[in-house]
């Protein structure tokens, strides 16, 4: 018990002290209830703080990519900007369109936000730091994540706006499509780790090395599919500004818009954190406390998402579906087969890892070659099309 006071165990130690203090004068079931509620409150707080940080970061990264400074007026280096944004959102007039379906319109942001926040329950923030160490952690994550589709559909339908409706159609098509490759990639990881629990997956990576190194092909697949699931560029078709003007939240304002915004960034944080858990060894890392490692890795992944957003245009909806069904699902199935065979047939973990790595590189090159060939054919056909 002497090392309970290290920074590594900071949060758990605080929890233990609080529990002991409460147990002094409260019955046991009340202590459990209070501690559980406290965990929920802390997770919510993490969610909201993460959103504040991310919205600031998003604006700064976008600005820096465009040779600008970004927000720098309110507070030192503009650090108070997210609070100003939040206050502005809260005090804005809440407009409900006259013809909107009020029930759906009001319910949609709640569904989306609740679905997003619930994903935090299984994120392994550090060694022994997960709110609910379910033995179906990953499955829970996928299941709760799919709640947001209902929310988006409700928002799109309830607004009674044609752009919002198109966005709802896109939501169904895109999110359902990309749940398949995400699932396939997760299964690959689960096969190597031998467990659905997030903590066990992290521990498995301690043993076998980061899965990112073992399966780069699967990782790239997961990265793309996850950015489609998180509605991040280049798959941000649901809120395409230039086409359907922010899609499902076109009619929302004020607090309800803020909830959508919140959900979007919570999804971003949770998705990046899950990617870190699955492929980058979660909270593993030398010297620093585990939860700090986890945050650092998560923010690096988030930065990559923002960087991509600042560079790439958006993919068209039919291309999104085409890539999803014709490239990602087959590639995911091939990856699944490779992972399964290698994991079962080669007993030695080191050799298995090397073979897996080589197979994944082959997968990347193969997919890249096939896509490149298709594109070259299309371009050759386009050449001189105007004169024919």
């Amino acid at each position, binding site marked *: 018990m002497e090392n309970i006071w290290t920074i590594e165990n900071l949060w758990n130690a605080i929890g233990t002290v609080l529990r002991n203090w409460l147990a002094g004068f409260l019955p046991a079931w009340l202590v459990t209830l209070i501690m559980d509620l406290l965990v929920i409150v802390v997770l919510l707080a993490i969610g909201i703080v993460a959103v504040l940080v991310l919205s600031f970061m998003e604006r700064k990264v976008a600005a820096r990519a465009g040779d600008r400074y970004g927000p720098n007026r309110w507070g030192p280096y503009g650090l108070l900007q997210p609070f100003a944004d939040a206050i502005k959102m809260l005090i804005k007039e809440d407009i409900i369109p006259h013809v909107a*379906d009020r029930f759906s319109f009001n319910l949609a942001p709640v569904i989306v936000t609740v679905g997003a926040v619930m994903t935090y329950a299984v994120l392994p923030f550090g060694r022994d730091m997960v709110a609910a160490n379910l033995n179906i952690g990953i499955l*829970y994550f*996928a299941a709760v994540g799919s709640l947001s589709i209902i929310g988006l559909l409700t928002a799109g339908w309830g607004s009674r706006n044609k752009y919002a409706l198109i966005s709802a159609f896109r939501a169904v098509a895109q999110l359902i499509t990309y749940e398949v490759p995400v699932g396939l990639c997760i299964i690959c990881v689960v096969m190597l780790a031998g467990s659905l629990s997030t903590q066990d997956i992290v521990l498995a990576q301690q043993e076998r090395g980061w899965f990112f190194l073992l399966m780069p092909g699967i990782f790239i697949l997961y990265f793309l599919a996850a950015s489609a699931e998180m509605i991040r560029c280049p798959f941000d078709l649901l809120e395409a500004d230039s086409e359907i003007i922010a899609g499902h939240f076109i009619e929302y304002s004020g607090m309800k818009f803020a909830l959508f915004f919140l959900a979007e960034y919570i999804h971003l944080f949770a998705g990046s954190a899950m990617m870190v858990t699955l492929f980058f060894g979660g909270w593993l890392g030398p010297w620093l406390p585990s939860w700090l490692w986890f945050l650092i890795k998560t923010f690096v992944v988030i930065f990559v998402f923002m960087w991509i957003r600042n560079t790439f245009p958006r993919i068209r909806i039919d291309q999104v579906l085409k890539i999803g069904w014709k490239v990602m699902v087959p590639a995911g199935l091939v990856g699944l087969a490779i992972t399964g065979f290698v994991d079962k047939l080669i007993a030695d973990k080191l050799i298995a890892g090397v073979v897996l790595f080589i197979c994944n590189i082959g997968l990347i090159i193969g997919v890249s070659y096939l896509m490149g060939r298709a594109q070259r054919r299309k371009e050759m056909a386009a050449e001189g099309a105007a004169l024919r």
Partner: protein
Amino acid sequence: MAQAIFIILSLITLGCALVVVTNRNLFHSALYLAFVFVGVAGLYFMLQAEFFAGIQVLIYVGAILTLIIFAIMLSRDLMNPNVRGFNRQWWAAAIVAGLLFVVLAVVLWRAPWPAAPVGEPSADFIAELGQALVSPAYVLPFEVVSILLLAALVGSILIARER
């Protein structure tokens, strides 16, 4: 405390289920159906069947309900208040529903409900489930279901292809 949570969950599930059948707005019914599914998933959770809870949410809410809502959104005049909710065969449907209710009630009434839990599920529950699916006992139904799904998949692609 588990008792209290169980009662709350059941009330939510039953209440929402009632709204699903009584609500005149089809879209709202579908939304309440989502709550029903989530409530059932909660009940599974309380029975320590986390895997089923996850699958319940993933399949029923994430896929089936989405398709239901999508169908409602895409169909014309389904939401039109002037369209009558009953057709001419409502009495036949009522009889069938009543019969089904009677059968279910009888079955439930006669079922021997164990008073105490049969035993803690093992920690490696999911692995065992996976093993069981491909064990000789269940491998045939499993494969039959796979073929059924595959046929459905091929069929849907054929229907969707207009050319």
